């Protein structure tokens, strides 16, 4: 069962309260998402740690119900 973009963004924001999340439906099928997550709390973290923070917020769904999430993380400029 695909996850809705809003649902993904809500989970990320619940886990990373200062995150700005921008979702893009890559294939137009509501199943292949791209998320751009910007958060001041990412400052000083490696990319791997930033991605891990997002995956942690998604609580184990990544790689499961969420197969295809293209993820970009950044610190606000």
């Amino acid at each position, binding site marked *: 069962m695909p996850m809705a973009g809003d649902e993904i963004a809500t989970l990320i924001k619940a886990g990373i309260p200062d995150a700005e999340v921008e979702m893009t439906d890559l294939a137009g099928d509501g199943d292949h998402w791209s998320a751009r997550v910007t958060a001041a709390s990412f400052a000083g973290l490696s*990319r*791997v740690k930033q*991605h*891990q923070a997002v*995956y942690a917020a998604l609580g*184990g769904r*990544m*790689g*499961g119900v969420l197969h*295809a999430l*293209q*993820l*970009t993380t950044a610190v606000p400029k």
Partner: protein
Amino acid sequence: MTDDAQARIDAVVKNNPVVLFMKGTPLFPQCGFSSRAVAILERLGADFESVDVLQDQGVRQGIKAYSDWPTIPQLYVGGEFVGGSDIMMEMYESGELAELFQDAGLSKAAE
């Protein structure tokens, strides 16, 4: 996830300068993300060892715990986890990945 799988993963990671854990093989990737990871490594002219996780359920599950990373592909350089396909793409575009291979003396004839 068995200790045996963890030991096998650890051996592959430690004994090869560049390892890509992927779905399928470089010639026949079975997933778009794995395909993208292979394309990046080939573009950089990096020699790499690949492990098809679809051939080994122990490794397929174990690799996720190994680096606390939920998805495949996963790239390791010099025994260190570098990232998945999104991080590889970002590092490729910024030139960091080429630098990483150069620093490690791994790229063939840098252009």
